[in-house]
Every structure is written in C-alpha cells, then in structure tokens.
C-alpha cells in the first residue's frame, strides 16, 4: 500500500494526474448521462412497442370478446385469426387451429397470472435468440357474485422486437461513441490545462536553477494575478533581497580586500627604507654593546618578517583581485624542484624521489613557491625523514610531500589551508606569516585549464605523518590568464 503510494507519488507527475482526473470526470459524467438517457430511451422504446402492439390487439380481442362458452372450434379460430396472424385462442383443452404461435413460449408464471389476475399481461422473452414479447389476454366472464373473472378463454400473441433491439443497440453504440469523444476531449483539455499550469512551474524551476548557479539577477515574468503570479512575485522579491544582500556582502568583502591591498602597498615603501636601515644596523651590531646589538638584531629580524608578511599579503591580494597571472614555461619538473631544494639548502634534509624527464608546462615561479612552502612546512612541523615523490601521467603531474611527524589532527585538517590558521596556538609567534599554505593552495588552483583543475590536498598517512598532495595539469593552455 505505502509502496504503491510512494510509486504513485514518484511516478505520477502533475500532467498524468491531471489527465487521469479529467478523463475520470469526463467518463463519470458521460457514463452517468449516457446511462440515464440510455435507460430512459430504452424504456420509451419498450413502452412504445408495447403500446403500439398491445393496445390495438386488446381492441381487436375486445370486439370478439362476447362469446358463449364453451366456444366452438370455429369460434376459437375466428377469434385467433381476427387478433393477428401469430395469435392463438385457447379454451381449456381446445385451441385455435393453424396458428404460428408456439405455446411453449408461455412461461408457467404467465399461465398462472392469466388464470388469476383478470388483466392483460405481457412478458418479454428471448425467443430463439430474438427478443420477443408474448401478450396474453384473458377474456372475463360475469359471475353470479357480480364480478368479472377469467372465463378460461384466452388469447395469446407473440411479436418480435428485432427493430426495437436494433434501435436500442444503436442507442448504446451512440452512447459509447459520444462517451469516447468526451474522453478524448477531456484528454485534450487536461493536457491544455496541465500545460497552462506546468509552464509557469517549469519557468520557475529554470529560474530557480539559474539563481542557484549564481545568476542572482534571474527573475520571473509575472503574468496575471493568480496563485502562480503570486508565487512568481514572491520568488522575485526573494531573489531581489538575496541579490541585494549578496551584493552588499561582496562590496564589503571587496572593500576589506582592497583595504588589505592598500595597507600592504602603503607599508611597502616605509619597509623598504626600514630594510635599508636594518642592513646598516646589522653591519654595526657587533660594534654596539650587548644590549644595543641584540636590540638592533631583533629590529632587523622583525623587519624582515614584516617585509615577508607584506609581500605575502600582497600576493594574496593579487589572488583575491583575480590579478594573479601564470607565466608558463616548459620545464623539467624534477630539475625545478631540485633547484628549489638546493637554493634553500634542504638537499640533505629531504629524501627526494624525483624521476627525471617529466616535462610539464607550468609556472616555474609558482611551482617554486608551492614546493618551498610544502617542504618548509614539513621540515618545520613534521619529523624527519621528509620525503618527496614525483609522479606524472599524460594529464597530471603529482607531487607528494610526506613527513613522519604526528600528522594533522582532525580539527586542523579542514582548515589547514585557511589564512592565518595556526595549528598550535601556543606557538603563536611562528616563523612564517601564516599565509604560506594559503598561497600555495591558491597557486595550485591557478594552474587550471578546461576541466582540469590544479589542487592541493592535505591528509594523514595510514602509517603516520602528514602528506600533502599537489596535483597540477601537465599541459596548460595559454589561456586568457
């Protein structure tokens, strides 16, 4: 039952339901109307046939009803032949001769009624496959108790009702035909109605999908003043509100980003001057006193950090503004990674498994940034040995950076690429800017072409330690980027 209901709910769209409902309504109406008319018309036909046969017959018998009983054979013959060709006159054991009437068609109950009722009776029967009507007319005699009772003299007639049968069948045929037409009409009307109802629904669905796909300016055309129009109006209002809110949020975010970009930009000039000064301080530091030298080194160190932070911030701002561009080149990936390690002096600290000869079209600078961030991160937070594995197929270049540290805890894992996210809050003053992994992630994403999107993912190895997987499309189109 519930399964059927579920099936009906799933499989029966609005259109078939409407069609079925309309057809049912039409069928019920047509059946009721046709049935009623059919029954009434058939009764009329039957009554007409009865009257047109029975009444004249009674008149003819009545004109011969005055008979002294028992009748003679001649009398019976003349009564029967005067009534009609298929009539028979019966009195006790006598019956008229030369009649076409078949006495076996008289049912026992008709016999009984004829003997007792004192009324003309008739009965429709099926005589050898044809509907026929048997009419019995008893002739009444006056009794000493001043009543009229059946005298025993009876006249029977049979009449075929083939014509009436044909008429009734035509009637039924007409009823079926017009019923079918009505059903057909109902289907058409139902389809039209379903169309009328479903078109706005489909439009609503399309527009909602557009909205869902990010086109916040998608709107419905409001037509008419019905429930669908009301729904469309509500939808439009909601979409407008949504667009306004999203626009506001975007403006705010853009403002915030521009602010960060502006701040970083504004900080760069004084930082450049400060860097020049700290270079001098660094050279002078040994000549200064202990405290002063330490202070000078601290200032120098923090200034370098600040410079790094501002550079990272500017890089992030470029990503946010969509201003980051790829500078593609055909490079040997293993060489590029080796260069990165060599420049940073990590060659001895890393087990690199870099098959030579993997040529890919990448941005070497960004690859360098990514690898440096990943390896630096592994060296800083993971435990040795840190291992690198490079792998490539026709479409992809993949680089695994694995360490043997404690790995990433489940709370950290989803946020590891977030900006300024610190896994260890106790160690708030870390070496990096807190933007390294975020920038690496953005750089990986930037390597996208067609359906192939570069990605950077973090996970834990089953045997312990973290693994960062860099996955870049091997051949990049020279896109508009």
């Amino acid at each position, binding site marked *: 039952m519930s399964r*059927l*209901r579920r099936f*009906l*709910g799933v499989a029966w769209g609005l259109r078939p*339901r409407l069609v*079925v409902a309309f057809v*049912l309504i039409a*069928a*019920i109406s047509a*059946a*009721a109307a046709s*049935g009623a008319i*059919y*029954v009434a018309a*058939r009764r009329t036909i*039957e009554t007409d046939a*009865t009257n047109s046969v*029975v009444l004249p017959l*009674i008149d003819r*018998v*009545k004109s011969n*009803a*005055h*008979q*002294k*009983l028992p009748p003679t054979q001649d009398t019976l013959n003349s009564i029967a032949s005067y009534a009609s060709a298929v009539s028979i006159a019966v009195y006790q054991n006598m019956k008229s001769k030369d009649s076409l009437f078949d006495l076996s068609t008289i*049912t026992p*109950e*008709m016999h009984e*009624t004829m003997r007792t*009722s*004192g*009324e*003309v*009776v*008739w*009965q*429709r*029967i*099926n005589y050898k496959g044809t*509907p026929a009507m048997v009419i019995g*007319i*008893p*002739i*009444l*005699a*006056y*009794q*000493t*108790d*001043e009543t009229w009772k*059946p*005298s*025993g*003299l009876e006249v029977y007639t049979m009449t075929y009702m083939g014509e*009436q*049968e044909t008429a*009734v*069948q035509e009637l*039924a045929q007409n009823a079926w035909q017009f019923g079918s037409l009505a059903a057909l009409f109902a289907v058409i009307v139902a389809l039209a109605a379903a169309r009328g109802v479903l078109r706005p629904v489909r439009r609503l669905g399309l527009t909602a999908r557009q909205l869902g796909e990010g086109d916040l300016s998608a709107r419905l055309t409001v037509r008419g003043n019905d429930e669908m129009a009301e729904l469309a109006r509500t939808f439009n209002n909601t979409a407008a509100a949504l667009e306004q809110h999203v626009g506001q949020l975007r403006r705010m975010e853009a403002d915030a980003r521009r602010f960060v970009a502006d701040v970083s930009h504004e900080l760069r000039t004084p930082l450049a001057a400060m860097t020049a000064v700290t270079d001098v301080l660094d050279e002078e530091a040994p000549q200064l006193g202990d405290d002063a030298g330490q202070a000078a080194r601290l200032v120098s160190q923090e200034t370098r950090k600040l410079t790094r932070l501002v550079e990272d911030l500017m890089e992030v701002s470029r990503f946010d503004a969509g201003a980051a561009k790829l500078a593609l080149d055909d490079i040997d990936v293993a060489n590029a990674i080796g260069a990165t390690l060599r420049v940073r002096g990590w060659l001895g600290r890393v087990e690199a498994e870099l098959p030579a000869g993997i040529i890919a079209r990448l941005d070497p600078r960004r690859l360098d940034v990514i690898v440096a961030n990943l390896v630096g991160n592994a060296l800083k937070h993971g435990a040795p040995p840190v291992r690198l594995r490079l792998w490539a197929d026709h479409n992809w270049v993949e680089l695994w950076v694995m360490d043997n540290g404690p790995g990433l805890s489940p709370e950290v894992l989803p946020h590891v690429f977030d900006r300024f996210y610190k896994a260890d809050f106790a160690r708030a003053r870390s070496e990096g800017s807190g933007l390294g992994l975020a920038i690496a992630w953005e750089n990986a994403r930037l390597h996208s072409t067609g359906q192939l999107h570069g990605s950077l993912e973090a996970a834990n190895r089953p045997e312990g330690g973290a693994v960062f997987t860099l996955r870049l499309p091997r051949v990049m189109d020279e896109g508009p980027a």
Partner: protein
Amino acid sequence: MTRGKGLLSTVALILAGAIVGLLVAGCGIRPTAVIHGQEAPKGAVTSMILYLLDHGTLHAVARPLPAPPTIDGPSGKISPWVPAESQALDALLQGPSATEAAGGLTSDIPPGAFGYFERPGGFDGTTISLTIKTRQGVALSQHAVDQITCTVITAQLTDGSLDTTRLRVVVHDSGDQSRPPQGCPLQTP
C-alpha cells in the same frame, strides 16, 4: 499520504460505477417478468344467470347456458337466434329447479305465468318493456318485479351489452297498476 488513498478510492469508485452502470444498462431488450397491463376484455358468457329469492332477498344463481333451440328446416336442423333475455325470462318464470329449491331458494312469481317483450317504438337503448301474464291475473309482488328486472338486465350481458347500469325495465302485469321503469336493486355490471 491522502493523495494515494484518494486516487485509489476514486479508481474504486469508477470501477464500481462502471459495473453498476453495465448492470443497470445491460444491452438491448432484456427479458422481463410478467407485466400486468390494463383490464382484460369482458364479455364471455359461461352461464345463464337468474335471480331467485333467498328468504326474501335477491340471490343470483347460475345455470348452464341452454343449448340453442333447433327446429327442422327444409335442409336439416337450423338454430334460430333466440334473444338471451327471452331465454332467461322463460327460465325464470318456470321457477327454481329441484336443486335450487332444495337449497331454500324460492321465486315470488306465481307458477304458470308467461311473459313477452314489447318494443312498440323499437328499443331506445335504455328502457325495456315487458308484460307478464299470470294465470289468475294476480298482480306481481315487488320481489317478483325485482327478480324479473335483474334477470332481464343481466341477460343483456349475454347479448353483448356491457353497460347495463343505465338499463331500466318496465314490467306490465295483469293489474291495471302501471309501474315506473326501474333498475335492478342489486349492483349489476
């Protein structure tokens, strides 16, 4: 939830309606039971009805229809037409039969009376005149007149006249007293 149920019950309703419709409508002309129509024709005569007296009240008795009288004609026996009221009147004047008398029925008409119908100006459709002659010329009692009137009127049925309620009979007898036309005090058809 209710949708599936409603749909199902609708379908059930339609099926039931279709079945009932088919049953009611059937197809073509169907056989029927015996149907009663209007009243059957009247007019058969199975007996001759006479009115005798049962302790002073009129009482109808039925006798078998008399065989038509035969007379010898030139070419064998022929049956002349005898009016039914004449036959009935003759039978009544002869008094009750032995069986009827044994049943306590009497006649107030003196024995030996005889009668004949008079139609001086023809039968006008309502009034039948007849004269009864008794042996001693005694006048007929009212009972005797009622007997004669009812018998004659009922006998009209035998001759095919069904509307006898308007019939009146004038009985003349030996007495000089003339009676008004009268009907049968009993209900006759």
